[in-house]
């Protein structure tokens, strides 16, 4: 449809439509809100990353020498809270999802643009509360807020942090609500469910979790606050309450929350693999249904975080077997991605390198998940570095790989510029190597028996900790690099064409960057998803010799 007849700098698009701080802070344009989110989550990502580096530095030696024990406890708590609630959960949905959902389904905007802006403001309010809590003493409960430590024993700013996450939860709920309504109601004529990009399916599944899981976390945090502030005794054993009930309610949200982080990433990777293999996704229907399956089954497994917590033997059996069920749709996805590459025409552009990295790390993270779902092994490895390594493989290895892959893939559409390909590949490789160096040793540490959240540790664990810390510095470089060259490219990058990758999907049929209302004329869809046979591969995409 729209072609860049003239360079982006001369054409009106969403970035240059109007200028000034008001035009951004009061915007209801989903693309601008996506950029507001991009800035905010990047800010929190680097705060969380800074905490992570301090943690790794402290663990360089067995003695607690860099920071005090209390400080260390606050560091890992705030690292977790910031990374989970202020980076990972909003990352792909609020940035790439916000930007792409209307574009991919051929709509002018999300169904509720003002609610979309509200959800960003809620996020910011929550973020400010969290920063305030950090600066006025911090929180030391662990991101899990386990009672009765959080309600009766911690002397830190639990109430403020809890309310902050409560508000952030509403931001997340509103984003999910907006997506579900948009996907149901705003699709362009001809954009049937079976023609939706799988990224949309993944976000739809994610939104279901956000809608039905987040409120349970919200009420649980309210109960913690009531207990701390007004001596309600709902989780207090001295009043006949049960601290395990807190864990049940907490994990009812927080296990599915892992899928809030990973499902969108799976969606991104699906788009990338199709594009750079130039193929329709193998088993489209199964990949789509696997997303929904993960969202639903993900709600049935929460107590596998509690196998040694004192739950009944029989419920442990139930939750263990259900945990294996949720592994099946994840396996289906991995196999389908692999099969998509079969007889493809594969190029190794930066997004594809991230996708490879994603599959690798996700496979390892998923496989070690089988260890943790296995009752007999879980008893030994739960609450050790094995768990730490496992969830970082999923939530950092895979989720952030997918996020970065998606940022590279859609950067030309978002900014209208190309990033430097060589640097892009270098960064992808650095992240992959740095990540494995940081977290693989932690699997061994965990099986050796090193408990998590330890400020000091017995000396026999040192060498693996040193390896891990060394890896984390490489990882840090890998994460800073893209930020630098993305910024660079905004000014010096080559202008992007409308469809630099030769990708399928409606978002590539409008200009880069898109006009404010996305499409010059309302699109009519008459083709299937991933119709790569009808799209020529572009010359820009690097070809192996």
């Amino acid at each position, binding site marked *: 449809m729209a072609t860049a007849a003239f360079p982006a700098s001369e054409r009106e698009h969403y970035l240059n439509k109007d200028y000034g701080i008001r035009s951004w802070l009061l915007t209801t344009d989903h693309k601008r809100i996506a950029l507001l989110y991009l800035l905010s989550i990047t800010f929190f990502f680097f705060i969380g990353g800074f905490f992570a580096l301090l943690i790794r530095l402290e663990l360089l030696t067995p003695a607690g020498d860099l920071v005090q024990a209390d400080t260390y406890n606050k560091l890992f708590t705030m690292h977790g809270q910031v990374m989970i609630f202020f980076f990972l959960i909003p990352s792909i949905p609020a940035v790439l999802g916000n930007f792409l959902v209307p574009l991919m389904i051929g709509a002018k905007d999300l169904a509720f643009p003002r609610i979309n802006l509200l959800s960003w403001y809620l996020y910011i309010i929550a973020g400010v509360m969290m920063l305030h809590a950090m600066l006025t003493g911090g929180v030391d409960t662990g991101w899990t807020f386990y009672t009765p430590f959080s309600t009766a024993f911690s002397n830190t700013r639990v109430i403020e942090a809890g309310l902050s996450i409560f508000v952030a939860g509403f931001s997340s709920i509103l984003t999910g609500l907006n997506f579900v309504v948009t996907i149901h109601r705003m699709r362009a004529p001809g954009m049937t469910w079976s023609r939706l990009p799988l990224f949309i399916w993944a976000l739809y599944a994610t939104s279901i979790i956000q809608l039905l899981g987040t409120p349970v976390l919200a009420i649980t945090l309210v109960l913690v606050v009531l207990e701390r502030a007004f001596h309600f005794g709902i989780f207090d054993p001295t009043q006949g309450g049960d601290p395990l009930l807190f864990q049940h309610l907490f994990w009812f949200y927080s296990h599915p929350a892992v899928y809030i982080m990973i499902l969108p990433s799976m969606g991104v990777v699906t788009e990338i693999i199709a594009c750079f293999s130039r193929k329709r996704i193998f088993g489209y229907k199964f990949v789509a249904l696997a997303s929904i399956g993960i969202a639903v089954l993900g709600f049935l497994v929460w107590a596998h975080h509690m196998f*040694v917590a004192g739950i009944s*033997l029989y419920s442990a059996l139930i939750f263990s077997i259900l945990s294996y069920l949720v592994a*099946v749709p994840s396996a289906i996805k991995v196999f389908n991605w692999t*099969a998509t590459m079969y007889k493809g025409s594969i190029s*190794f552009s930066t997004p594809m390198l991230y996708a490879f990295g994603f599959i690798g790390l996700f496979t390892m993270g998923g496989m070690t998940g089988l260890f943790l779902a296995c009752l007999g092994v879980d008893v030994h490895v*739960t609450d050790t570095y094995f768990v730490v390594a496992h969830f970082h493989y999923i939530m950092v290895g895979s989720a952030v790989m997918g996020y970065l892959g998606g940022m590279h893939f859609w950067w030309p559409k978002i900014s209208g510029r190309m990033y430097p390909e060589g640097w892009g590949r270098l960064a992808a490789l650095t992240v992959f190597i740095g990540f494995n160096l940081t977290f693989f040793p932690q699997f061994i540490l965990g099986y050796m028996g090193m408990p998590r959240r330890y400020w000091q540790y017995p000396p026999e664990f040192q060498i693996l900790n040193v390896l891990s810390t060394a890896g984390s510095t490489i990882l840090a470089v890998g994460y800073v690099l893209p930020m630098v060259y993305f910024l660079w490219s905004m000014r010096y990058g080559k202008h992007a064409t409308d469809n630099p990758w030769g990708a399928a999907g409606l978002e590539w049929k409008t200009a880069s960057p898109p006009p404010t209302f996305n499409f010059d004329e309302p699109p009519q869809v008459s083709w299937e998803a991933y119709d790569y046979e009808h799209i020529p591969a572009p010359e820009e995409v690097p*070809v192996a010799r």
Partner: protein
Amino acid sequence: MFQNFPLWPISASTMSGRVDALFIFLLVVCGFMTIAIFVLILFFAARYRRRPGFEAEQIEGSNALELTWSIVPLAIFMVIFTWGAVIYFQGRTPPQGADEIYVVAKQWMWKLQHEGGQREINELHVPVGRDIKMIMTSQDVIHSFYVPAFRIKQDVLPGRYTTAWFHATRAGTYHLFCAEYCGTQHSGMIGQVVVMEPAQYEAWLAGGTSGAPLAVTGQKLFAELGCSTCHRSDAQGRGPDLDGVFGKPVLLEDGRTVTVDEDYVRESILSPAAKVVKGFKPIMPTFQGIVSEEQVNALVAYVKSLAQPPPGQATRSANLAAPQTHTEQVH
């Protein structure tokens, strides 16, 4: 700089071998599947790399393949699940006749007490080759009793008992970690389990100062706190007779039946009106805040001792009346 750099934890209990075997099985199966996927991806990436003149071949999918790679993994998963469940079941079922250790966790130390009355802090001496069962509770927040060398871990909760057990197979000194984050000095809540040959263990038992067996301490408390004025063995008391009730079901005032276990005795001391035995009035005062966790343990041990050797009462009095020389080892 780095003294001993092992890659595998020491194995020192009957459980460790079982867990290791399953772990190795998982490593092999999952390792194989992971490598297979990696090899396939690398092979496709190389074999089908973009070259001039080669077009991708569009393939819709294959239901047969989808079914295969859903059902085959699921079958493997079920094997893993079953194997893991068996081991877990063993870990959660302490064998009959195990020696009992009462554990009280608090910020940030482990207090352990043997049936014979020996107290220890952050150190547990046990003989090799015997079943040891821990009956654990916490004074404040949630802790977790973790001995990597035994491959056992169990959270220790305030307000109730949880149990764990092990059967040490190798003498030596092993880490005892707190594995559930519990505040400032969580990482300092480390102790050790000293597993000794039986002869040395006997020597250790004899080495310390004397202390009464736990049940005897409990019996004294029972009298001092005035429990014995109501809980009399002549069936005339205002409270139920406690002789021989432990381990048996009792009928409650509200019609339910519960088994008298450690948790029930504990609850009856601390929240006496919660589960009142049929035919009695809820007149017992609570002992919450009056007795310490250790004293509750002693009382539980006493009530338990009342049910022990069933044949004849003689054994019972003999059991308690003759305190042998026991040790008090506080570190």
